[in-house]
């Protein structure tokens, strides 16, 4: 059965710190209580996320840290209770039909969460047992996945001594062990060396070719560009752009971005820059910075320099970006994905 993903107007507001970050409050048998009359701090993680991922699609959530990517994955994988809105995997409401949803999904969390009391092979075999695979199937699939992820020679060792990259590979193998229809990969290439990253991409594409839906989150534009059929760029819990990588890149005015920094701010200079041939949009950014969107890159620098010189303004810095998702993010938010 093929299954897609659908969310409508998903909102999540945290009014207490997540458990891991919950300070040093010691133990408590009761619900956490506010001190005095101070209102509880509210953190809006998702602010109306509506997405539709077709069955068999590789879909990417791209955004900076704290944008709401992992919370979206958390809601879709039954681990985060949405404040409002709905989420579906296939035809199943994630919150109301959790067991049915859990049968359909495989999840690779952002941080390794392997069972440290077991060996690599046992991790896969017990995972298969939780999903009701027969003993024969479990052994066969575990063997195949260990081989595919190049872990066979460490299969019978405890995972405590594994490197970060090996743990990540094993986490992905485990998520595929029960052959889920929808695979969630939350920042899967974090900590992987370039060679392993390519292996991961190859495996993800191969898994997708068997008709499986894949949702991955990343703040790596190259990864989103290389893997995804469609992607959503999210920031502060909002979807700010949605489409194929090609469509999204084409939506940036001109495609090229020149980030300029002048010795002083000059509105007159900005007007002259707008009149240059090929320039589509000029925006003053923080301080003395100016972002110039254009359909050409390096060839504009000489024109910009002469205009600045004529206006008596020093051109201190120029940075040219070719058409990219980074430019798109900057265009929508005024911030870099890496900030």
């Amino acid at each position: 059965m093929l299954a897609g993903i659908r969310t409508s107007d998903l909102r999540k507001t945290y009014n207490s710190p997540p458990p891991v970050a919950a300070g040093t409050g010691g133990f408590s048998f009761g619900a956490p209580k506010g001190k005095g009359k101070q209102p509880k701090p509210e953190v809006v993680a998702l602010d109306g996320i509506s997405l539709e991922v077709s069955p068999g699609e590789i879909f990417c959530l791209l955004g900076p840290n704290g944008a709401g990517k992992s919370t979206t994955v958390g809601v879709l994988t039954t681990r985060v209770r949405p404040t409002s809105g709905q989420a579906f995997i296939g035809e199943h409401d994630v919150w109301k039909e959790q067991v049915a949803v859990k049968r359909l999904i495989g999840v690779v969390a952002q941080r390794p969460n392997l069972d440290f009391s077991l060996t690599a092979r046992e991790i896969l075999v017990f995972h298969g047992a939780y999903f009701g695979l027969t003993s024969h199937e479990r052994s066969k699939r575990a063997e195949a996945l260990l081989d595919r992820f190049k872990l066979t020679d460490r299969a019978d060792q405890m995972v405590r001594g594994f490197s970060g990259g090996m743990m990540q590979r094993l986490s992905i193998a485990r998520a595929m062990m029960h052959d889920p229809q929808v695979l969630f990969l939350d920042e899967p290439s974090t900590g992987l060396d370039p060679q392993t990253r390519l292996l991961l991409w190859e495996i993800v594409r191969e898994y997708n070719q068997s008709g499986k839906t894949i949702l991955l989150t990343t703040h790596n534009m190259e990864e989103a560009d290389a893997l995804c059929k469609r992607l959503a760029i999210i920031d502060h819990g909002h979807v700010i752009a949605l489409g194929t990588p090609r469509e999204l890149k084409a939506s940036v005015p001109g495609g090229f971005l020149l980030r300029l920094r002048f010795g002083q701010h000059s509105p007159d200079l900005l007007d002259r820059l707008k009149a240059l041939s090929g320039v589509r949009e000029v925006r003053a950014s923080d301080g003395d910075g100016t972002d110039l969107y254009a359909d050409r890159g390096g060839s504009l620098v000489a024109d910009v320099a002469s205009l600045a010189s004529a206006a008596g303004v020093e051109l201190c810095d120029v940075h040219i970006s070719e058409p990219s998702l980074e430019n798109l993010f900057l265009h929508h938010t005024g911030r870099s994905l890496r900030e």
Partner: protein
Amino acid sequence: MNWKAFFAMLARDAHVARRNFVALLFQTFLQPLMFVFIFGRVMVGSGYMPPSYKSLLLPGIMAICMVGTGIWAVAMPLIAEFQFTREIEDRLLAPMEISWLAIEKVVAGTLQALAAGFMVIPAAWLLLRPGVNLNVPHPLLFTLVAVLVALFSATGGLALGCSMQQTHIGLMFSLIVAPMIFFGCTYYPWSALEKFPVLQKAVLVNPLVYASEGLRATMIPQFPHLPSYAVLAGLVFFNALLLAVGLRNFHGKSVT
């Protein structure tokens, strides 16, 4: 209910316990058996304690072993797995209601506590003999009490494991477990507190009192002990309370 997943998780816990068997043996039995040797053998042998103390001590030691094992087996993995290692996430994503994962932890802890309880009896008896007068007139009642004590240890482990921060494990033992053992009528019968009436009433909020008195009532009924109905009522009440608190906190930890 997905019994396949439930039993697969029990099998996983049994596998891990088997792998750590020797460490578990030392952890569970070393300290209580040293206590048995010093207080039951050395102190009684040198005349500082009456010979009857040997019999009186054994049910209390059994209670300590069971409660220690259950709490350790359930609480410690939960504290680590929910916070630092997040190992439990794999099982939370298994196709089963998450409450059943908590119940599986309780069942695994109960079985380990029962095993510890039944293993410590012959070990302590060997250290103390001769002079131990065990007398189990109602084996069924004894079994029921032992199961309830083991269940209490595991539900207590669940409640503690889902309420503690990893940085407060030391505090858990010094602020909760140690006072519970010393004021839990483990080394003395509840009736010995008659000269401290306020304390005698206050310790009734300690579930370990019902555990040690229950084992005393069913293993050495010739000594003074709380009536069986009070023991059963106390254990059932605390088991239900700790299970309810444990399940609620388990949900709180599992879903943000």
